[in-house]
């Protein structure tokens, strides 16, 4: 295995294991590692990769695939994705197994319950942080409001609402 592949595995495994609170908190450190430390791609390419990846569905952290691709082709892409997603997923499987075994203990219940208000606050904060870069004018503001209203007050299927938003974006340019 080449040095680049090992570095990709090492960097993204460590990042994955430090992503407490979600993957979005990692993006500045991913940029530092990929651009400044390892020069897998230029700063301009990094910005372009992140912007392009937003055309895809799924978690935003999946854009590490593009970094691995630029660094070492197909195998690099696979290494980056596996290192980014597998360690956290394995830990979450362990957490679920532990909850299944010990979840009824009062102490465990209290610890999990303690996170509940913070979890909701952070979910709303991630919407606000996303809004800073995506809700930039009256059009995007209107789409965000309509999406929130549609999701909250109607039973319309989300894919249909999503298509309506995409069509609005296409027509309004």
């Amino acid at each position: 295995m080449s040095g680049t592949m090992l570095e990709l595995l090492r960097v993204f495994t460590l990042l994955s294991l430090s992503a407490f609170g979600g993957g979005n908190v990692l993006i500045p450190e991913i940029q530092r590692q990929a651009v400044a430390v390892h020069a897998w791609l230029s700063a301009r390419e990094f910005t372009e990769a992140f912007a392009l990846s937003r055309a895809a569905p799924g978690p935003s952290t999946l854009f590490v695939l593009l970094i691995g691709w630029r660094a070492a082709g197909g195998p690099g892409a696979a290494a980056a994705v596996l290192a980014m997603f597998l360690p956290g997923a394995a830990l979450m499987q362990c957490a679920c197994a532990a909850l299944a075994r010990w979840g009824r203990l009062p102490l465990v219940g209290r610890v999990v319950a303690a996170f509940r208000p913070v979890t909701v606050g952070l979910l709303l904060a991630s919407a606000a942080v996303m809004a800073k870069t995506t809700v930039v004018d009256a059009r995007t503001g209107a789409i965000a409001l309509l999406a929130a209203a549609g999701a909250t007050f109607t039973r319309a299927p989300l894919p249909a609402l999503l298509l309506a938003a995409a069509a609005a974006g296409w027509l309004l340019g």
Partner: protein
Amino acid sequence: MTVGPIRPSLGAVAARFLLVGATSFGGGLTGHLRRALVEDRRWLTEDEFLEGLSVAQAVPGPNAINLSIYAGWRLRGPLGAAVAALSVMLVPLAFVSAIAVGWAGATALPRAAGVLRALGAFGVGLMASSGLTMLRSARFDALDLALAAAAFAAVAFFTLPVPAVLFGFAALSAVRPRRVEAR
């Protein structure tokens, strides 16, 4: 947590998570999961979903993937968790792989920028809707609401590091006084 009384087949779990993954354009995957699991199918209750998201944030890794693992676990045990996580990732993986291969030509679509902006705004609206709905259904008291608001402001306005806010406010929340012992 136990594997719940609702046990859809592994195939049904795979199909549901595949659809959610395939349609979650513009970010906001957590909002899509809430809608699909709590509202469209009553596979998880509001309480279970909030517990799942809490554990997903406390364990490292992308929230939506951790949340998929939690939901799959509750529905079908460890195998269900693996199926849910792989299914929700499948189409996004194919999509980003295609973007990697076509990278050079992908920026040449003029109208695509407008569609992307609209989808990003949609994701924001969906996440806000999910958060507000959870806030309403969680039966928080005044202190809980204050903690939620403080965590929100710390990240959204003061841009404090998310892990510090998560564990700091959770610690405060754990030692806060409670009139009745919860559960």
